[in-house]
């Protein structure tokens, strides 16, 4: 009756059927094909950044690192990096701060107003950033804009908004905040609403102050949400194109020329295609480094929030 192990191997009775083993790869195949197809341009970008390709001339030659060296020597590049970082910094800080504040206000009160608010404040997020820019341009228009009329009441006339290099950044960040702040609010609000009640109830019995509760109970447990919001907003604002392009195409002058818009101009407006690629590749590297840092912090905060401490070995 004993079935010899040797026989089993010969008869192949303990191997999973090929179809079952291959199934995960088979069903992932279509999605991979579709998305890999788009990876090709990326590979090409790296290649072409080493050539002198422009749209006008059909021929090009391999010029090695010349594009890259020229870029690093160009004042416009460093200016673009500076603008990129400034824009991302302001937009992210304002959105995170305002978003956190509003989310906390909404999370702690429960009435018809807050319920209504939670639904309608998603609307700005649903509007295309380019369209949002149009709306704000209309509102701030010196001739017919409602904001202009509002400022007139305080004796301010012809506020330049996007027309002056002093206020253009402010205007762009304002529009960015209007569109994306709800994103932060929704995420953090979800974190607040999923907080377990019991720690807060026992804290109430122990008699902690509101600040104490916030710092030691709320904050650690919603940190994962905060990091996710931070991750998405930082990534996006580093690469922001639509809002700036729709607003001033990078102007006035080069006030709002971040890496994305500069690359676009170099590539399309100036037709120096290959010269524009290093700009975007640098941007991509910046985005990736920042993303990795935040993802690490996010993963750690998840462990802390659920009580599984890394130091204890990870098992819950």
């Amino acid at each position: 009756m004993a079935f010899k192990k040797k026989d089993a191997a010969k008869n192949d009775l303990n191997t999973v059927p090929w179809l079952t083993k291959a199934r995960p790869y088979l069903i992932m195949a279509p999605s991979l094909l579709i998305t890999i197809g788009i990876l090709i341009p990326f590979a090409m970008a790296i290649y072409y950044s080493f050539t002198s390709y422009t749209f006008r001339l059909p021929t090009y030659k391999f010029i090695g690192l010349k594009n890259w060296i020229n870029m690093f020597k160009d004042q416009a590049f460093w200016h673009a990096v500076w603008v990129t970082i400034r824009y991302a910094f302001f937009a992210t800080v304002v959105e995170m701060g305002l978003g956190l504040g509003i989310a906390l206000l909404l999370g702690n009160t429960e009435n018809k107003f807050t319920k209504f608010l939670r639904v309608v404040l998603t609307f700005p997020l649903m509007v295309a950033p380019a369209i949002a820019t149009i709306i704000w341009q209309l509102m701030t228009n010196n001739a017919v804009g409602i904001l202009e009329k509002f400022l007139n009441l305080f004796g301010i006339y012809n506020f330049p908004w996007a027309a002056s290099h002093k206020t253009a950044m402010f205007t762009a960040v304002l529009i960015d905040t209007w569109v994306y702040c709800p994103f932060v609010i929704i995420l953090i609000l979800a974190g607040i609403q999923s907080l377990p009640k019991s720690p807060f109830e026992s804290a109430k019995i122990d008699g902690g102050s509101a600040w104490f509760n916030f710092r030691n109970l709320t904050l650690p447990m919603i940190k994962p949400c905060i990091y996710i919001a931070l991750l998405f907003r930082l990534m996006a604002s580093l690469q922001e194109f639509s809002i700036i392009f729709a607003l001033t195409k990078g102007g006035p002058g080069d006030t709002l020329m971040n890496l994305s818009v500069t690359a676009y101009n170099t590539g399309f407006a100036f037709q120096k295609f290959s010269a524009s690629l290093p700009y975007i590749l640098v941007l991509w590297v910046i985005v990736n480094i920042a993303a990795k840092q935040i993802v690490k912090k996010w993963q750690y905060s998840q462990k802390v929030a659920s009580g599984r401490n890394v130091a204890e070995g990870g098992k819950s």
Partner: protein
Amino acid sequence: MAKIELVNITKRFGKFTALDNVNLEIKDNEFFVLFGPAGAGKTTLLNTVAGLVMPEEGVVKFNDEIMNKVDPSHRNVAMVFENYALYPNLTVYENIASPLRSPLYKKDDATIDKEVHRVAQILRIDHLLERLPSQLSNGQKQRVAIGRALVRNPNVFLMDEPIAHLDAKLRHHMRSELKEMQSSFNSTVIYVTHDFLEAVSLGDRIAIINEGKIIQVGTREEVYYTPCNEFVASLVGEPEINLVDGRLIADNGKYYVEVLQKGYMLPLPENSGIIKKLIDSGTTEYHIGFRPNNVKYTFEKKEGLLRGTVYSFESIGNKAVLIAKIGDQFLRMIAPNDLKVKLDQDVYVELPINRATFFNAQTTQFIGTSDEAAIYRLVQEQLSKGVQ
């Protein structure tokens, strides 16, 4: 209805061996219980029979036919899952009808309706047929899960701790319901549990499994009176069996065992088979098992009894467990609920040496039992079943 065989089954998950060279033969129409502690491999074994996992070594046979390459839908098994696994978006009616709507086991609507109602009536859930699983209590969900299995006419019913998540009263009720159904099942059943009472009350035969290995297979009497080692003896029996150190002493052709206190000797029944077994065992150091319900006690000093003190007294329902401390060992005994007893009170204990189980102290393996009546019953049982 089928005979199920597992031959040399080994199943590994990465470095962890869940089933280690398991060999089982389950007879046609047998109610077979798989009993063991949590993590022993019981669910993995069921999944192997069902075809939900592929063993690294060994084969599964239904009626002598190798089923390794057959996928679960074609094996014609019915399974009741520990967590019910009801389809959340279907009504109770549709959940139970589900197998009868599958392409493989399809029946026409009239038959489906008849079967679902028949099963629902047996399980007393016919008033719940239009509800969704989220609207049911645990006990009701469990009965729906059983119902989904009962509408089938499978090779084997696989039941994975189906009543583990019910409260004690409901579990007791379902145990007797299952016992009633068992006789009318007319099918092979493999029933998994970690509850000893369930195991002995339902099973024709019980397989004890621990850490992926089958320790012993036998009827409830066999595992109770002749457990193959101390692990099985401790597992089977409520309250747990008492295991005390003992030594064989020979004196003028008479044999005694010295237990618990130096010089306290219990005489082994003369000319009994156990003496020969003990001599043949090659050792004189034993762990001797006394079932709590056989241990006698009294509060009056009596000659020849062991003296100890009352350590604890705890009610377990309609009776109580009295624990006596003798030296540094403890003895569990059954006592009536209304017994007036004080802690640290003196108590005198009589160990029933003629109903004891003997284990090799070093290897923990079973040597023999002095319970001649039980041995006689077991032999009769085996003879009547035609086993040599």
